C-alpha cells in the first residue's frame, strides 16, 4: 500500500496513549491498532476528522504517499 499512516509518530509527538485516543474518538483500541500498523484498507472522513481534532493536526500529518506497488483495482476503500 503506497499510503503510509504516521499515526504512531503523531501520537508520540503529542505524548498521547493509543487507548486514550481510541476512547476520545470513539473507536476500539483494536481498530486503532489496525490503523497504526497500516493494515486498514480505508479510513472514514469522520474518523480522520476526529483524530485530527484530538491530536490537533492536519490529515497530511497523518497520511503520507510513497511510490510503490499499487493495490489491486476495485479493492474497496473510501
Amino acid at each position, binding site marked *: 500500500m503506497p499510503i503510509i499512516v504516521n499515526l504512531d509518530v503523531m501520537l508520540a509527538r503529542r505524548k498521547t496513549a493509543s487507548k486514550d485516543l481510541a476512547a476520545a474518538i470513539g*473507536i476500539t483500541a483494536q*481498530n*486503532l491498532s*489496525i*490503523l497504526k500498523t497500516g*493494515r*486498514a*484498507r*480505508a*479510513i*472514514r472522513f469522520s*474518523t480522520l476528522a476526529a483524530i485530527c481534532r484530538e491530536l490537533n493536526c492536519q490529515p497530511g500529518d497523518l497520511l503520507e504517499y510513497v511510490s510503490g506497488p499499487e493495490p489491486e483495482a476495485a*479493492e*474497496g*476503500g*473510501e
Partner: protein
Amino acid sequence: MDKIQRLSSRLRVLFLAGMVSVPVLHAVGWAFFERIMATPPLNFSSIFGLSWGEPPFMAGPATLAMKLLGFCSSMLPGAAAMYGFACLAGLFGRFGKGEMFSAATVRLLRRLGWAVLVAQGMQVLHGSLASLILTMGNPPGRHVVTIGLDSATLAETVTGVVIILASWVMDEARKLKEEQELVI
C-alpha cells in the same frame, strides 16, 4: 441475531441426531427387510435402493449375507448423508456462536453441497448393487441388475448444485465483511 443463534443451536442437535440415525435406520431397515417391504407405510425403498418401491424377483428370503451386503451398499449414500449431516451440524454450530460469514462456514456449506451431489451418485450405484445383492440367490438367468434415475435424485442433484452456488455467494459476502472490518 439471538433468534438465529437459539434456533441454530437446536438445529445443530437435530442434525447430530440425524447423523447418528442414518446407520441405525439402515441397519434396522435391512435387519427387518421382508417385514418392512411387506408393510407399505414402512416402505423405506430409498434405503433398499429400490426406486419403484418393489423388490426385484427373489427366489427365496433374504439371507444374512444379502442383508449385510445390502447394508454395506446402502451405507455408500448413507455415509455421504452422514457427512452432510455433520457439515450441517458444524454449520449451525457456528451460526449458534454468531459466526455467520467466515471462511469456515463457507467451507462447510460447500462441503454440504458436494455431499448432496456425491450422495446422489452413490444412490444410483447403490440401486444397482442392491438389485444384484437381492437376486444373488436366484437361479442362473434370474439375476437382476437395475440402473435408474428418478425425479428425486435429479431434484436433489439440482439442490446440491444450488448449495454449492450459494456457498460461492456466501464467500463473496465473507470477503465484503472482511473488507468492511478493515475500514476504520
